[in-house]
């Protein structure tokens, strides 16, 4: 499904000093692997790895293949890959407070719109409602984002991420800001998404989250090491 070969990433600070984040990193998991947890301490590069997988970070050396095709490092091609294949969930939800829950999810639906072609509004709204139902937030369409709890906000973010029906969901510390009870709810939701056929890569420092994934990898010394 996803394969990284010889991934090298070097960070440069303002003074010009270099820090090697990934040094010949390799990652590969098959189609039957539904979820991968990437563990590591803070600053190990978990979020950077996910950004590379999302096509948001294009400054690296190495090869990135997804679904049998190499992911281009041209911004427009990377954006198209992200638009068509990837859903992203972050620790702080990244919801827009200037619109309600439904409109936030609609962003995920309409991102695949073709420029110059009118979007089928009814179909888009129906799809957004369906995603909200899926994450257990049916009835929250008109709610303002700033009135939601952490768990509800993360569910909205997940609904937005799956609204375009991506094959891969990348989640960066998805339960980092949630309590244990809410975390468990989110993990149950993730499990359901996997049963629906989606692949997930989760960056986390939480053992609880990692235990819910098929494969656990530890990011250390610029490389990924399998964890039993």
């Amino acid at each position, binding site marked *: 499904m996803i394969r990284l070969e010889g991934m090298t990433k070097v*960070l440069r600070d303002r003074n010009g000093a270099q820090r090697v984040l990934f040094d010949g990193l390799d990652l590969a998991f098959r189609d039957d692997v539904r979820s991968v947890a990437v563990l590591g301490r803070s600053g190990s590069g978990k979020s*950077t790895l996910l*950004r590379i997988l*999302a096509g*948001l*970070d*294009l*400054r*690296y050396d190495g090869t990135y293949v997804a679904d049998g095709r190499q992911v281009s*490092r*041209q*911004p*427009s091609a990377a*954006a*198209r890959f*992200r*638009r*068509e294949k*990837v859903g*992203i969930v972050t620790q702080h939800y*990244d919801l*827009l407070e*200037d*619109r309600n829950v439904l*409109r936030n999810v609609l*962003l*995920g639906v309409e*991102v*695949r719109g073709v*420029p110059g072609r009118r979007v089928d509004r009814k179909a888009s709204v129906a799809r957004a409602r369906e995603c909200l139902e899926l994450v257990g937030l049916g009835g929250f369409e008109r709610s303002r984002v700033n009135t939601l709890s952490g768990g509800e906000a993360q569910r909205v973010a997940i609904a*937005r991420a799956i609204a*375009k029906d991506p094959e891969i969901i990348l989640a960066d510390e998805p339960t980092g800001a949630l309590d244990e009870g809410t975390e468990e709810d989110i993990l149950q939701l993730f499990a359901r998404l996997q049963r629906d056929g989606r692949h997930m890569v989760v960056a986390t420092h939480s053992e609880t989250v990692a235990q819910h994934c098929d494969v656990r990898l530890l990011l250390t010394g610029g490389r990924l090491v399998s964890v039993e």
Partner: protein
Amino acid sequence: MSEVLIDLRRNVVPISVKVVVLALFFLIVATVASFATSVSSAISSAFSEETEVDLFGVVDTLTDPDAFYAFRQSTRSIQQLGAFYDGLNTSDDLTLLSAFDQQIPVQDFRGGDEFDPGYGNELSLTDEYVDATSGSVVEDVRAMQMNRQALEFYDIEVASGTSIDWGTVDYPGGKVPVLLGSAYEGVYQVGERLSGSLYLRPMEFEVVGILRQGSAMFYKGEMNTYLDSAMIVPYPESLTEIGSLDQEFLGILSFAMINADVASGGGTGFDGVADELRQISMRTGFEDYSLIGVPTYLIQFGLMRQLIVDNRGLLVVVLALLAGGVACAGTFVSLHLRARRRPAASVLWTLGWSFPRIVRLQRRLWMVEYVAVGALFALGLPLLPGVGPGAFLATLALMVVWFVVDGLVQHRLLVGAVFAVPGGRS
């Protein structure tokens, strides 16, 4: 389009501030540019150093009423006075600026109080009265009689109609062409005739032109005596060749005309002017005159020019400071707007919007802002006093430059906002 509406609704306050600040800035630029160009034009023409002259006064010395009366009864004396006037008026070394503000009684006058000689000063307004000469009901109107050289020296020009055709000034026939100040626009038309009198002599005044607004002249120590509500009555070109006029009227007219200012080019000086007058006096036999210096004209002229030059420099500095302040304010608001728009741009990019699509959205927002600036500017422009075409075009050019620069800055800020994630755009 919905993203544009959401952005406008969310950012209506900073966008409105930006639009108002920029529109006001361009309106101020247009006004000051118009002022600066008109001042430069005035300085280069009317207020240049080459236009400085020495100004002196000529007055008669017949202050004793009996002597004055006796002089006017003598045909020979009046002829000598007329010859003296003509000598001054035709001198190559002097410019005779003869002007007097004798009010004119006019029959069936259609104007309002603003044309009354007492309007706007300490005198009381006059009412209609029966003119003893004609027996008609008349009203006194403000007037200024002057010779051709005064009209030309003070650059008194018409906005409509024609200037005085001096060949048609017919005092013996009682028909005189006149110019009306700009305030007469809509009261009398070019071609109309007003019946009145000058020094009790019935006259018919034909309106041949309406003056430009703001026409003014130096008169009795006042640098800018405005003529907007005055009737300009031309003096006869010559007193010796005026034709047949009764002696009483001719005497009054002659003394009015001889009390005048004399302008001489730089370098002639008081002695030179006095010498020329002495020669004319000897030639004509008229001796009852005196020459006085009028330094106030020169001082006021110089002061006014310096005031304008200094103010022009001050205005340039003020404008530069104002422009700098507005640029800072506009930049601050633009940065503030970009910060408010950053989360949405970042989310759209993360979701997979292409960068060109995000840029198109940004451009729509930028266009909305600047169409609003242009519309507000267009609405405000007619309210400004007389912005010239040159100033307008210069302001328009500045506006285009500002729009383009702001668009480029907005684009740069957008790139930074969207690609804040390290390693985005190559």
